[in-house]
């Protein structure tokens, strides 16, 4: 699949999900796994748009890539917003899961769902770009080659 490059606005979200659905279909992911992947990518993409670009007052693109091998599908989101590692929010969100609704942290829940459901998740900041990588094992895939 050709990479998708979109302006980093909320309008990009549905197109990004559509891209992920197509990639998941090509990878032969089961329905729930395909949904989980869509959800995880959507949550991080949302954070990129709102916290990365909008709140910092800068604009930029989001680039989505799909990389398929016999073992797994990897989706990469790349943006040029200020460096942000989403993995720090996971612990905070998980601790508060049993708390009354009103006390839930706002941004962390989506990232918590990502951590739970992905077979792999990687983050790096490289050459001015955040790169978030979501990995899902393919049915019949034996291991997780990076």
């Amino acid at each position, binding site marked *: 699949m050709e990479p998708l490059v979109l302006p980093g606005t909320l309008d990009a979200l549905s197109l990004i*999900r559509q891209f992920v659905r197509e990639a998941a279909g090509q990878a032969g992911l089961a329905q729930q796994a395909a949904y989980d992947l869509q959800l995880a990518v*959507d949550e991080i993409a949302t954070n990129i748009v709102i916290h990365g670009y909008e709140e910092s007052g800068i604009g930029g693109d989001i680039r989505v890539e799909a990389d398929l091998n016999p073992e797994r599908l990897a989706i990469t989101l790349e943006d040029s917003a200020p460096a942000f590692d989403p993995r720090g929010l996971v612990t905070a969100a998980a601790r508060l899961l049993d708390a009354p609704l009103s006390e839930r942290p706002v941004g962390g*829940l*989506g990232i918590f769902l990502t951590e739970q459901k992905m077979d792999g998740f990687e983050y790096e900041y490289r050459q001015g770009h955040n790169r978030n990588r979501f990995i899902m094992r393919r049915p019949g895939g034996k291991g997780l080659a990076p």
Partner: protein
Amino acid sequence: MAFNVNLEMKGTEAHLTLSGELDAASAGVLKGTVEQAAGNNPAKLVMHMQDLSFMASAGLRVLIFAKQKMGEKVGITLIGCQAPVRSTLEMSGFHHSVYLQDAE
């Protein structure tokens, strides 16, 4: 598929019918409709979820908002959630705060 929500009052019950995908881009539309429903002082909020194919955490936040807006006395029932949406609700602990009902 684009998000859509309809509000219908049936006596003191506010019925919302959702369709499409609920994400950060469309959550504001649902929030506005919940506010509209709250203005009718319903005894109960019922959300028909059969045609909602996707729900991000932004959707969960609107449910939190609905709960706070309607008050503790107004029960919120979600009917016919698709399996992945239901899974998200259960994983996030929302099944303790809203009633989950199978499709009629």
